[in-house]
Every structure is written in structure tokens, then in C-alpha cells.
């Protein structure tokens, strides 16, 4: 049982655990998928960024290359003297317009002095210590010595970071001068980087120390976002072009989806947990229920009290094992039966039915009913039944619940105790009688002994012819007084007997008989004897001692029942009848017992004659004495149907 339950428990636990694991795995898979997608997206972004980056760098490179070419041309034209005064300015303007990254253009002679330039104020010299920043001067010197175009390192000017492109001009190996194009990093970026790029990335230029020299936008990109850097060459000098992607606008739908998936996963887990709790509770409840059921079943099975439930029509709907044991019928045989029940004793059928109907009418006595029932084998047993209404869970009265106690043993014990008591009383009576007889004998012996001694003494003297008259007279007087003494003893006995003389009063014989039957009925039922009274109404009233007559009747009835002990149960009938008789009435007690032999009949009324082993042989003798005291007559006849008839007459009351 327990093993089965625990196995069930295990299976259920498995049922509960598997979905949770599945859901967990599912959520994990989805999350990984999302992460992979995210990674892929980042990768794509990075690739896009790199290519965009390269593209921008390309543009910048191209722009700077073009600037170099144009500056080269300008230098040729200028130093060849092809540019008249009036033509220089427009040429400058057009160049600046075409190369937005250039903020200022300076023409220098071979010494580095500024010849011309614009826009804005033009410094004195580029080589001098004051006017141009150091990187620019270095670049100038480098370009003059190498004869190549040189980019300067970046330098700060005001809030801006600048770098210069120095284009030297030579003719026949002679340095004629240089052109300096001052580039602003910021302007270069803002003019050359297209809007769509700026929208996607923050583009900036930093030096090798990470100092931002300029950027297309000032909006800060968030931390940990995608960024890429490539060398910005030219101008070189460790400058880096850095593009940082603005936080990619992730797809709302996708996020919502992910959120939904996670949320649903959590929901499923939560519901699983809730279900598990619910299941656990149900399991606990089931366990408790089965325990309770097992307990109740054990209780019910071990009960000694029989339980039987009936519906409102009296049909048996339930019996417990104790009831089955008691009656000998199985539950299957009993359930569904309507009265009369097979366990009702046939001889008590009507009484049992009456009890049954009383119960159905709701008048079951609360102190219980004693009923004689029979077992399957026909054996009778006494049961004490308590009935109570059967109320179901809805408060509906659905039938009757009866608890049945087998009280046969108890009754038997009670009867045994009573018999013991009677025997004891009987013995006590005998002892008392014996003592009385002994005392009586002693009391009588004394004077009798004295009388005998006196007499013998007298005779001895007379025989010896040796006596004196006075002496003899004196002794004879003593002798007489001893005789008187014996007489006193006898009188005392007589007085004692007289004290228990009957108290006579007018009474009704039929009433006395009914009372006597009432007294002996229980005993008769126990012995299976049926007492039938056949009483003549209108009997003459009699003058009698009621208690004594009752004793006589009880004695005669008990004798009759004793005589029928071996008679078959159907014939155990004891008939008590009354009839008017000449000058009074006649009472007959008829039994169907073993009868009385002729020899026994002759001694029947003699004292100390008994046919019973425990009999004192006083019963009938006393009965006849009482009847004779009442001036009646008592005799015995043989019952022609087998058995004996005791008769007695009593005279009518004399007024």
C-alpha cells in the first residue's frame, strides 16, 4: 500500500518535473536564439560600420588628394607668374569653395614669409618663431628639404584643431616658395562626411593619446557601443579616424517578442509551480483521506458493536462486519433486504416487527430496545438495539442507523448470578433450619434427659425396695416440672410458627394469577415456555392471603416448567385456568411435561419428598397446607394429553 503510494508519488513528481524542465529548456533556447540574433546583428553592424568607415576615409583621402593637386596647380600658376593680381583672389575663392576642409590658404616665399593668403588675417612668416605653430614650421622645413608635399602634425588654435598641408614649389631644383593649406579637422569632417553617415555614427578624429581633435557631431554615443577606428593618413602622425555607432535602434517588435517569450515562459513556470502546489495539496488531501478511510475501516472492522443502516422504507443499506458475525449472514445477503429480516426470531416476529415500525415512525426509545434475534444456524441471541436517525452531509434525513449489541453473554451472566444468589439463599435457609433444629434438640434434650434420669433413679430404688416416700414425692414433683419445661419449649416453637400466620383479606383470584404470571413471564420466555391463561370472569371473591396464594401459583407454575424441560419447544405450553366451583372457585395449572408416576403421586404432598435433585420437598407440602389453611383442597391429576394437572379449590368469601 505504502509502496504503491510512493510509486504513484514518484510518477506524479515526474509528471510535474518534466514540463518544468521542458519549459526551462525552451526559454533557454529562445534566449540563446535572441542572443545569437543580437550577435549577428552586431556583427552585421560592425561590418557595415567598417565598410562605411572605409568609405569615409576614402572620401577624405580623395578630398585631400584633390586639394594637393589643386594646390600644386595654384603654386605653378602663381610662381610662374601667371596669376595677375586680379586673378589671384577669384582663384583662391574658387579653391576654397571646392575644398571646404581648408580654412586658410597661405602663399609663402622661399624664406617662409607670407606673400599672400586668405581668408582672414595672414601672419608675417611661417618659419619664424612666433607666427606659425611648431608643427607647421616643422612641416615647412621638411617639405623644403625633401621637395615633397608634407602634412603637418595637428595643433590647436583656439577651440579648433588644425593641420597644414605644405606644398613646395620648385623650378629647376630651386625652391620658389610654398603653399600652406590650413585644414580644420572639424570643418573637414563636417563638410566631407555625408549626413547619413553622421546620422548613424559619431565620427571624430583623435590623436594617438585619444584626445578628440574634432568630430562631426557633439552628441555623445552611449557606452559599450560599436566603434571602429582606422588611421587617418594623411595627415598621419598617429591620427585616428573614429566612428562610433549610435545605439542601434533595436527592433521594438523583436524586443516585445523576446519580452513576451520570457514573460510567457515565466508565466508557464509560475503556473506549473502553482499547479504543482495544487497537486501537492490534492495529494496530501488524498493521502489524508485514504488514511482517514483506512482508520475508519479498521475501526469499523474491529468494532464489536454491530452496525446496520436502513433507509426510510426500512431496507437495509449497510451492515458492518460485527453485525455479519453476530447474525451469521454476509453483508451481500443482508443489504437490500426488506422486513421481515432473516435474523428475526420467528417466535418474536410480531414483537420485532412492532419495534421495527416504531423505529421507522421515529419513536425509537433512546434507552434502546431488547430484542431476541437468531443467527443463521437458528441459534437465538439477545440483542440490545439503539436506533438513531441517519442524517447525511446535506442534513437530509435518509434513514436509520442502528447499533446492535449482543447481550446474550451478559444476560447469561446475570441469570447465572441470580441462580447463584438463589442457591445461596437456599443454602442459607438450610443452614438456618439446621441450626434451629439443633437448638431445638438441645433445648428438648435437657428436660428429657433429666426426666429419664429421675425416672431411672426412682425405678432403681423401687427395684431395690430401698426408698423413702418423701424423697420419692419430691423427685416426682421435680420430674413433673421437667415435663412442664419440655412443654414450654414446644409452645415456644408453636408461637414462632404462629407469628408467620397468613393475613387474610378479600381478593380476586384472577388478579393474583395475572400478577404471578407477570412475575414468572421472563423466566418462561427464557425457557421457551408459553404461558396461557384461561380465566373465568366473574369469579367469586375470596378471603385469602394474597402473597401466599401467589407463592402457591409461582410454585406450581415453576414445577410445570421444570417438568417440561425435555418437552419439544412447540408443546411447552402451561395453561392456568380458573372456573367457578361449588361454594367457591377452582384453579387448574396444566403442564405438558413428563408427568408423575403413580408411586410419586402417592408421596407428592408428603414433607421432604422431592423428584428434583435440589428440591427440599417442602414446596407442595406447604402449598397444600396453605390451601387447607384457607379451607380449600388440593389434588393432582394426570393430563390426558401428557403431563400433570394441579388443582385447588378455595371457598367463597363468607360475609
Amino acid at each position, binding site marked *: 500500500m505504502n509502496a504503491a503510494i510512493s510509486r504513484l508519488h514518484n510518477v506524479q513528481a515526474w509528471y510535474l518535473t518534466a514540463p518544468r524542465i521542458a519549459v526551462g529548456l525552451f526559454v533557454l533556447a529562445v534566449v540563446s536564439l535572441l542572443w545569437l540574433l543580437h550577435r549577428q546583428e552586431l556583427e552585421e553592424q560592425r561590418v557595415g560600420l567598417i565598410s562605411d568607415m572605409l568609405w569615409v576615409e576614402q572620401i577624405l583621402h580623395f578630398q585631400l588628394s584633390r586639394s594637393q593637386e589643386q594646390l600644386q596647380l595654384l603654386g605653378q600658376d602663381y610662381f610662374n607668374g601667371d596669376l595677375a593680381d586680379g586673378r589671384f583672389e577669384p582663384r583662391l575663392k574658387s579653391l576654397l569653395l571646392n575644398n571646404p576642409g581648408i580654412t586658410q590658404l597661405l602663399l609663402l616665399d622661399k624664406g617662409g614669409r607670407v606673400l599672400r593668403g586668405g581668408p582672414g588675417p595672414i601672419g608675417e612668416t611661417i618659419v619664424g618663431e612666433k607666427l606659425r605653430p611648431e608643427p607647421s614650421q616643422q612641416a615647412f622645413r621638411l617639405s623644403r628639404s625633401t621637395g615633397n608635399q608634407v602634412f603637418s602634425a595637428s595643433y590647436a588654435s583656439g577651440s579648433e584643431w588644425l593641420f597644414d598641408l605644405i606644398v613646395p614649389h620648385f623650378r629647376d631644383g630651386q625652391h620658389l616658395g610654398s603653399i600652406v593649406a590650413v585644414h580644420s579637422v572639424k570643418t573637414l569632417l563636417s563638410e566631407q562626411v555625408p549626413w547619413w553617415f553622421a546620422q548613424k555614427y559619431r565620427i571624430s578624429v583623435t590623436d594617438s593619446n585619444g584626445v578628440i581633435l574634432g568630430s562631426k557631431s557633439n552628441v555623445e554615443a552611449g557606452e559599450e557601443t560599436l566603434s571602429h577606428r582606422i588611421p587617418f593618413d594623411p595627415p598621419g602622425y598617429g591620427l585616428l579616424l573614429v566612428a562610433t555607432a549610435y545605439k542601434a535602434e533595436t527592433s521594438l517588435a523583436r524586443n516585445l517578442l523576446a519580452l513576451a517569450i520570457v514573460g510567457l515562459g515565466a508565466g508557464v513556470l509560475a503556473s506549473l509551480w502553482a499547479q504543482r502546489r495544487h497537486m501537492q495539496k490534492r495529494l496530501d488531501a488524498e493521502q489524508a483521506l485514504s488514511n482517514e478511510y483506512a482508520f475508519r475501516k479498521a475501526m469499523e472492522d474491529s468494532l464489536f458493536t454491530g452496525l446496520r443502516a436502513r433507509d426510510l422504507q426500512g431496507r437495509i443499506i449497510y451492515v458492518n462486519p460485527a453485525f455479519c458475525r453476530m447474525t451469521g449472514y454476509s453483508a451481500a445477503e443482508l443489504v437490500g433486504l426488506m422486513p421481515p429480516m432473516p435474523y428475526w426470531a420467528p417466535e418474536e416476529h410480531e414483537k420485532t416487527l412492532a419495534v421495527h415500525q416504531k423505529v421507522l415512525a421515529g419513536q425509537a426509545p433512546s434507552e434502546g430496545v431488547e430484542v431476541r434475534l437468531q443467527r443463521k444456524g437458528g441459534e437465538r441471541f439477545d440483542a440490545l438495539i439503539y436506533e438513531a436517525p441517519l442524517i447525511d452531509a446535506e442534513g437530509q434525513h435518509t434513514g436509520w442507523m442502528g447499533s446492535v449489541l449482543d447481550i446474550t453473554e451478559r444476560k447469561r451472566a446475570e441469570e447465572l448470578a441470580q441462580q447463584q444468589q438463589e442457591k445461596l439463599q437456599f443454602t442459607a435457609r438450610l443452614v438456618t433450619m439446621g441450626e434451629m433444629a*439443633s437448638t431445638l*434438640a*438441645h433445648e428438648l*434434650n*435437657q*428436660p*428429657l*434427659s*433429666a*426426666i*429419664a*434420669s*429421675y*425416672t*431411672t*433413679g*426412682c425405678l*432403681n*430404688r423401687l427395684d*431395690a425396695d430401698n426408698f423413702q416416700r418423701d424423697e420419692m414425692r419430691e*423427685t416426682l414433683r*421435680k420430674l413433673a*416440672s*421437667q415435663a412442664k*419445661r419440655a412443654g414450654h419449649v414446644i409452645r415456644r416453637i408453636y408461637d414462632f410458627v404462629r407469628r408467620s400466620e397468613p393475613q387474610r383479606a378479600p381478593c380476586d383470584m384472577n388478579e393474583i394469577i395475572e400478577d404471578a404470571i407477570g412475575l414468572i413471564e421472563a423466566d418462561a420466555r427464557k425457557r421457551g415456555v408459553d404461558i396461557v391463561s384461561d380465566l373465568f370472569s366473574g369469579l367469586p371473591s375470596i378471603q385469602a392471603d394474597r402473597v401466599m396464594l401467589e407463592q402457591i401459583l409461582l410454585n406450581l407454575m415453576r414445577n410445570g416448567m421444570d417438568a417440561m424441560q425435555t418437552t419439544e419447544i412447540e408443546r411447552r405450553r402451561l395453561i392456568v385456568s380458573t372456573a367457578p366451583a361449588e361454594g367457591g372457585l377452582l384453579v387448574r395449572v396444566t403442564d405438558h411435561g413428563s408427568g408423575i408416576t403413580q408411586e410419586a403421586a402417592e408421596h407428592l404432598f408428603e414433607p421432604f419428598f422431592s423428584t428434583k435433585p435440589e428440591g427440599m420437598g417442602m414446596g407442595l407440602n406447604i402449598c397444600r397446607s396453605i390451601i387447607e389453611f384457607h379451607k380449600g383442597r388440593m389434588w393432582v391429576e394426570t393430563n390426558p394429553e401428557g403431563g400433570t394437572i394441579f388443582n385447588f379449590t378455595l371457598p367463597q368469601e363468607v360475609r
Partner: protein
Amino acid sequence: MTGTAFIVDDDEAIRDALTWLFKSRQVASRAWPSAEAFLADWQDTLRGCMVLDVRMGDMSGLELFDILSERGSQLPVIFLSGHGDIPLAVAAVKKGAFDFVEKPFNDNELVDRVILALAFGASRQERHEGQATLTSRLSQITPREREVMECILEGKYNKVIADELNIAMRTVEVHRARIFEKMGVKSAVELAQLLSGRK
């Protein structure tokens, strides 16, 4: 007839009737109404027999019998028993009572038994007294004399005795004379008769 019948019965009529009866057969009697009264009068010198009722007021006849036995009374006892006392009376006889008679009794038969009891009592008394005399005489013999007496009882001559006990012939003769004197006999044969059944 020697001795008296001592009647103890709490019923005056019985006492009086028995006295009347015994007197008619020339048996002397004396009566007491209770066991206690008799005990108060009892002396070792009483000679006769007792007629004792089993059932009496305070002290029963049987108790009195036990007390008398303890005191060394030699009186034979006849119990008068009533209805239901017979087992008690039988027990008493087993303890040494002379007899019991059931009430109401055949009176002359009772008297016959009383006479028997008196005779028995007298002879027992005599025997008892003889024994007592012998015992007192024997107690006067010295240990040395006893040794000599045993030799005499074995029928040895004085010379043999003297040799055996390592004493002079003359001394044996003196002892012999002393022993005869103390035991109240005149010859060795008489001494042997007196001490037969004794030792």
C-alpha cells in the same frame, strides 16, 4: 465402690437428676454448675471420675478437659453430648477421654459406665502412685550405688562386682545393704521385681 462421680453441667435439673440416679446405685457424686467452679475446687487428691457436659455456658466441657490434662489430672472423663456435639465428643475420646454418652441417654447404662470409669480411675491412680514412689526411691540412690545396683540386677556375685568396679568386697556389701534399704526390699529378687518394666 471407691471414688466419687464429679458432675459438671450447667443445667441444674440434669445435675439433680444425675445425683438422684447415681445415689440409687450407691455411687457417690458431687456436682458443679460450671467448668470454672470445678477448676476452683480441683485438687490433685480428688479420686473418682468426671461426668462432663460438652456444651456449657462460658467454658465448654472440652476446654475443661484440656486444662485438666495439662494439670496432670488422672480422672477419667465421660462426656455427655447433645445433638450435633458427637464429633466433638469423639475427638475428645481420641485425646484420652474415657467415653461419651449421647443425650438422651439410657440412664443405667450411664451408671454402669461411671462405675467402670471409677474402677479404671482407681487402678490408674494406684499405678500412678506406685510409679511415683519408685521414682522417689530411685532418686535417693547415689551414682556409685546405681552402678552396683545394675550389677546386682544382672545377677553378679559380690566378688565379681568388686573386681569389676575395682572396689573392696566389703564396700560392695555395704552398698548392697544401702540399696536394699533405700528401695524398701529385702532381696535381689524383690528388687528385680520392683524394677521390671522400668529402666
